[in-house]
């Protein structure tokens, strides 16, 4: 307190002196001398700077390949810091200021052009031959989109161009990165992923928003290009959807500041994936019939009634995940993951030409576990590398079943057994897993085996009629299996050629072989692969 007063007093005194002073002739002469001296100093300074500049130019004019000696640089090789930073910034809540370093000193050397996003195109083509036309595994045809309209990852027989995938990515500004991935087929363009991620949030947190592959499990967020087999595991396709869990939403994740890699995250998603969050919404069921009328003239009738499905706005699906990876040195890496999710809505409907409408309306949940182990001794081009991965997902659909029939042009009336309230509650319980191993048996070559199992638990409800003519009865189905083997030749990291043979053994007694060939090439800036 005392010092503040002294300071204030000093300030007042100095101000007083400045005003009171009258300049004398002696003062002015001294001032002129001082000015002349300063002028001379400035001239010297200018001369020195000019000499330095000339020397610098000479250095720059030497060709880049010259045997230039670093010598003892007199000037700092880098600009001085714009802000005085003291010590390493260890406070996670106070990260580096978001401001970029001045242009030209950012310090990265790339061949990419300055402001254009990184561009890559991935082309994937297949040839497939199936010994038999097999259906989906029993119990899993339900809620799984058929027809694979547009851009599906289902393999079809014959020659196929599965996709041309165009990826653009880059930094929006110091705060966000963006990535857009569009799958182009000959009839349409579909956004496979389009999202932004934060790059400046403190304390190891990151937010992702847009349309993206969920981080649940391990293989869910991989693209065709990353798969080790021609097709995806049944688990990804049948438990979540043709494209896995790919949703519009927001993800927040946190990487813990520990020695051991631990990442936690949750996602708030719109909820449209057929396997876990199928959504139909409200609306009317319509049927148009043309039947003989009273005088045998064809008569056109329109049947219309409310579907009785609730309409719930998104977000409807909520998921969480945890990943943990201890440091096992340079040769081994392992990652364990657990995930789960809840969808407020799971709906489905099937209309029959007989005028009957079946609806399912309820919610769903899933839990999963995943494991990846990678071994690499650093052999030439993948030689000796081994990857083992396994995942399991368990799913429950808790739905109310209604089977209704048009009783007149605008009324749907319940039919058996769903006219009995006890028969309307259906709790579906299903699961799926896969286990695969891939080994680099020679430089640029690898081979792998995969086992797919679905329906180890397979409590479903039949939409056909039973012996007593009742519908929607519980039917406990068994497991279906698929065994696949592949051989891949990757001439470089940008191209791969693959052959695969699968044997499918369905629960319904059908079995068959599938033979597939694939080429997958990437052009342009090829993004680094996540673990």
């Amino acid at each position, binding site marked *: 307190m005392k010092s503040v007063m002294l300071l204030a007093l000093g300030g007042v005194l100095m101000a007083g002196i400045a005003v009171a002073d009258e300049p004398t002739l002696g003062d002015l002469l001294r001032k002129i001398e001082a000015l002349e001296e300063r002028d001379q100093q400035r001239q010297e300074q200018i001369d020195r700077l000019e000499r330095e500049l000339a020397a610098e130019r000479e250095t720059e004019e030497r060709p880049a*390949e010259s045997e*230039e000696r670093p010598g003892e640089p007199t000037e700092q090789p880098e600009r001085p*810091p714009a802000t005085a930073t003291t010590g390493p910034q260890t406070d996670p809540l106070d990260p580096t200021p978001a401001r970029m370093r001045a242009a030209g000193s950012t310090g990265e*050397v790339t061949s990419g052009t300055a402001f254009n996003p990184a561009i890559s195109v991935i082309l994937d083509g297949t040839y497939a031959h199936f010994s038999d036309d097999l259906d989906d595994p029993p119990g899993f045809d339900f809620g799984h989109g058929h027809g694979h309209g547009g851009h599906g990852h289902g393999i079809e027989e014959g020659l196929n161009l599965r996709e041309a995938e165009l990826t653009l990515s880059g930094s929006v500004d110091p705060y966000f990165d963006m990535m857009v991935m569009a799958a182009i087929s000959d009839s349409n363009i579909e956004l496979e992923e389009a999202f932004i991620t934060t790059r400046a949030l403190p304390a190891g947190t990151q937010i992702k928003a847009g349309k993206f592959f969920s981080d649940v499990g391990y293989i869910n967020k991989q693209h065709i290009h990353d798969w080790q087999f021609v097709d995806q595991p049944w688990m990804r396709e049948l438990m979540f959807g043709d494209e896995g869990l790919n949703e519009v939403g927001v993800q927040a994740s946190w990487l813990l*500041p520990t020695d051991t890699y631990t990442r936690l995250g949750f996602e708030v998603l719109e909820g449209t994936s057929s396997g876990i969050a199928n959504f139909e919404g409200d609306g009317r069921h319509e049927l148009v019939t043309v039947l003989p009328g009273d005088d045998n003239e064809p008569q056109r009738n329109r049947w219309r009634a409310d579907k009785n499905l609730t309409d719930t706005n998104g977000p409807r699906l909520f998921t969480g995940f945890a990943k943990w990876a201890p440091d096992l040195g340079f040769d081994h890496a392992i990652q364990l993951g657990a995930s789960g999710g809840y969808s407020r809505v799971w709906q489905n409907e099937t209309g029959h030409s007989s005028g009957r409408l079946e609806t399912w309306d309820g919610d769903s949940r899933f839990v999963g576990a995943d494991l990846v182990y990678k071994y690499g001794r650093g052999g030439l081009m993948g030689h000796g590398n081994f990857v083992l991965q396994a995942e399991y997902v368990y799913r429950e659909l808790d739905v109310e079943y209604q089977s209704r029939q048009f009783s007149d042009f605008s009324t749907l009336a319940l039919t058996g057994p769903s006219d009995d309230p006890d028969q309307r509650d259906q709790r579906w319980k299903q699961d799926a897993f896969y286990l695969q191993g891939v080994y680099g048996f020679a430089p640029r070559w690898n081979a792998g085996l995969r086992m797919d199992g679905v329906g180890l638990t397979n409590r479903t409800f039949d939409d056909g009629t039973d012996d007593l003519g009742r519908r929607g009865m519980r039917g406990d189905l068994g497991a279906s299996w698929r065994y696949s083997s592949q051989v891949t030749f990757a001439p*470089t990291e940008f191209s791969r050629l693959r052959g695969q043979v699968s044997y499918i053994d369905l629960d319904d007694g059908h079995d068959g072989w599938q033979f597939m060939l694939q080429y997958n090439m990437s052009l342009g800036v090829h993004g680094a692969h996540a673990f």
Partner: protein
Amino acid sequence: MKKFLAGLILTLISIQAVAEVRVVATVPNMGMLARAVGGDAVSVTVLAPPDRDAHYLEARPSMMSALRRADIVVAVGAELEVGWLPAALQGAHNPRVQPGRSGYFEGAAHTSLIQVGGAADRAQGDVHPAGNPHYYFDPERMAEIGYALASRLGELDSDNADQYRANAEEFAQQAEDQVAEWKSRVDDPPGVVFYHKDADYLAKLLDADILGYLEPLPGIPPTASHLRELVGSLRGTDGVILYTDFQSSSGADFLARELGWSAHQLPNQIAIDGSVDDYFSMIERWVEAIVR
């Protein structure tokens, strides 16, 4: 109150003094440089072991957790680590070390590279239009980068800025002496054949002619036809074949047998915690193999 404030300030100062700059280096040679320049004021973690080809690594969770806690990442740059470092940085959730920030340091940006430009066309193999990234074969270029690193570390930790600069100067002096000594030993060196365009910087330093590469194109393993072509064009000349410990020896052995040359398999990275001396002796082995 006064006592409390004084205590707080003292505590903050002591934390400041104890806190090391956490450096994550991509490869051991860069780790060596970081330790040489940083001295006791830094702690260094290295992401890739010496016996791996840094072109072909995979991003791993342990890299991400190391980068998560890093104050600065020291990379070779010029797209050597392009296959894995961006993914590791993306997964690290650490704004301090993202490209463009003070905590992201690419050595390649602070020295002159050879073989800059050229078509960005992968029909020419795994090309690096930004320049040859294997500059760690040239101690003088490493010294140049050492100065830049000292200045960057000084930005992060101004208290030790002078020490960093002094360390960088010491390393530069050692590099200069070493290179001068090697040059004095080399008189009219034989031509060299490398497996990959990696030791080109050393060949340039010693004025040795590069007669060819075992790879037909960068990143493509030696083929029989390419080796036969090499044998055809080099028969009757004198030279030496050099390749690194993660490159296959069959091509080199074939060439050595056909031409009657010697072939040497040598490391191109030092041990994870290797010292400055280890680095110079690693290069020295290459120099000796060329000089014989």
